[in-house]
């Protein structure tokens, strides 16, 4: 019988100093990657669409810190944070945003399609919900090959309304596959609030329909996400089957792009309230308060990351454009 594994407890959790620092660094890397990408977009340097992840960093960081390199993830249209946290390099990512030949997709994919097989990043996805069954397939392959890696599928609240999501969840459950379904519930699907697209308050309730346990966590608290993910991963690795984590979070920018921040669909007060719970501020305040890290150490992470990002942007800008003569590259193999 399916059970809600309970709403994760709010008590301060016993995670090592090293883990807190790791979570912090992953979040800073995402934040800076994203805010710089936003600036480049505003400056007219990037073509295409840009769905920024800022605000949701605790989810990617918390989950990815519980994974090994050989664990696989599938991502969404809002995929930069997942890629960065999984260890995809800044150079390949920026080069892709610029449409350069050195990009993660050789300039063929852009923001919505970044992937890196060497990091177990099975791709951002332009089709809502499409990554879910793919993660199920990746988990199937792991078990088939006798490996103990797991697969994690990230998706938004809105994506759980799509057929592929339900079919994927049921398939994972019935086959007992090592998949972790991570719902990043930021309260909106584009401009539609959750209350406008489902009657549930908790997306996690959907897991029960497939006999899958679920847990709800504070998606602004990287430590809480990490704890839930660690448990879900251990469970899946041990062969206990899929599980769902619902992280309640928020995106600070608009659905797409940076400009305008036109959000008549959400109030300024609501945005401000969530911003006051900035996941990076939270972890920094806690780390300093409990002596996990000094302010100087935290600042150093920002500084180092800034340097790395400046290098990656310079690399992207200096990279060659793809050659139109190679238009048919990789349409087929062999």
């Amino acid at each position: 019988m399916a059970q809600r594994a309970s709403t994760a407890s709010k008590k301060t959790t016993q995670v090592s100093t090293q883990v807190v620092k790791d979570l912090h660094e992953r979040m800073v890397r995402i934040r800076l990657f994203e805010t710089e990408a936003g600036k480049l977009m505003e400056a007219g340097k990037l073509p295409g669409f840009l769905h920024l992840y800022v605000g949701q960093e605790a989810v990617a960081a918390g989950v990815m810190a519980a994974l090994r390199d050989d664990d696989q993830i599938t991502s969404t249209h809002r995929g930069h944070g997942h890629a960065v946290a999984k260890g995809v390099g800044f150079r390949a990512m920026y080069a892709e945003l610029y449409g350069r030949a050195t990009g993660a997709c050789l300039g063929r994919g852009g923001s919505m399609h970044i992937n890196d097989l060497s990091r177990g990043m099975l791709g951002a996805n332009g089709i809502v919900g499409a990554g879910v069954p793919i993660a199920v397939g990746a988990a199937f392959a792991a078990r088939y090959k006798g490996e103990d890696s797991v697969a994690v599928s990230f998706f938004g609240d809105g994506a759980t309304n799509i057929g592929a999501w339900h079919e994927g969840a049921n398939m994972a459950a019935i086959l007992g596959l090592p998949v972790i379904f991570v719902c990043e519930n930021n309260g909106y699907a584009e401009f539609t609030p959750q209350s406008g697209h489902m009657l549930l308050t908790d997306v996690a309730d959907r897991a029960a329909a497939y006999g899958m346990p679920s847990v709800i966590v504070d998606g602004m608290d990287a430590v809480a996400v990490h704890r839930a993910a660690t448990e879900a991963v251990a469970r899946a690795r041990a062969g206990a089957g899929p599980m769902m984590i619902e992280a309640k979070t928020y995106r600070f920018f608009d659905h797409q792009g940076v400009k305008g921040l036109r959000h008549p669909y959400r109030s300024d007060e609501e945005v401000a309230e969530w911003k006051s719970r900035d996941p990076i501020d939270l972890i920094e305040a806690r780390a300093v308060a409990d002596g996990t890290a000094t302010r100087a150490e935290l600042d150093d992470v920002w500084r180092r990351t800034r340097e790395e990002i400046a290098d990656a942007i310079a690399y992207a800008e200096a990279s060659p454009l793809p050659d139109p003569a190679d238009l048919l590259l990789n349409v087929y193999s062999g």
Partner: protein
Amino acid sequence: MTTISEAPAVAPNAGARKLSYVKAFNEGLAQAMREDENVFVAGEDVAGYGGVFRMFDNLLDEFGPRRMIDTPISEAALVGLGVGAAARGLRPVVDLMFMDFIGVCLDQIVNQAAKMKYMFGGALSVPLTITTASGAGLGAAAQHSQSLEAWLAHVPGLKVVMPCDAYTAKGLTVSAIRDDNPVVVMLNKVLLGSVGEVPEEIYGIPLGQAHTARQGSDVTVIALGRMVGEALAAADELAAEGVEIEVIDPRTVQPLDTETMFASVRRTNRVLVVHEAVTFGGLGAEIAAQIQDEVFDYLDAPVLRIGAPFSPVPFSPVLEKAYVPDRARIAQGCRRLLERS
């Protein structure tokens, strides 16, 4: 194939009011909703937000939430809602945002909407309109840029229209809504802001009737959707070289008005078909085959097709530009045809 001979109810007249393509679509939709109480609109972010391409701006204010419905991200259920409602006599307009998303609801379009009248022995009809945005050019990459008209035109029971400008965006939309069959209206993303003369009154453009966008004696260019504008630009370029191109806009690709094309071929004796979609298996193949079936004797050169290479749509602007056919390639194609004959 079908030819409907009535002329459009209202022709664009010089000096008429100018409107953008997307506003023309919006006006036609609003007028069709006023005309028929059974018309309603459903889709993701169409009501409260007015659609991600602003296609549905202001309609919620006028028509209210009974007729402007925001739905979850559930395209199969969305199209199915339209099919069921249409079967019960409503005239749904269902929006799929990006054409690529038909991938997640193709069953409802192909196996349900398209076949229902046939399988019910004609006892009902499915007056469903599906609106969507197609085409490359925005750096939207492989899953947000496709032109999949050939998939749909291949299915008996569906109609497919491809407006090339503001005037046709409005007229074809109105006709799609008034039509008793499932009709897919493929708006083009790059054209959304393009401005043209649009009559203020409601008018329909007959489905299945091609339009001769420019008359010429040397080569017939049959262009779909956005390629009409490119073909007209190529015609200007060639006119300077003394070559007169006739440009035919089918407007509807299913049903396809081949008679207008045949008549043109009989005059020019050379044909080039151009579309944004991948050349292989594209509508160019169908059009070329029909031309060689019916007016082969009039041809001075083999029918030439121009389309996209056999590849997904690339992201990088330099690749995307090389991928999509343009005026230069069309002009080049016309020159080649003239050299061969």
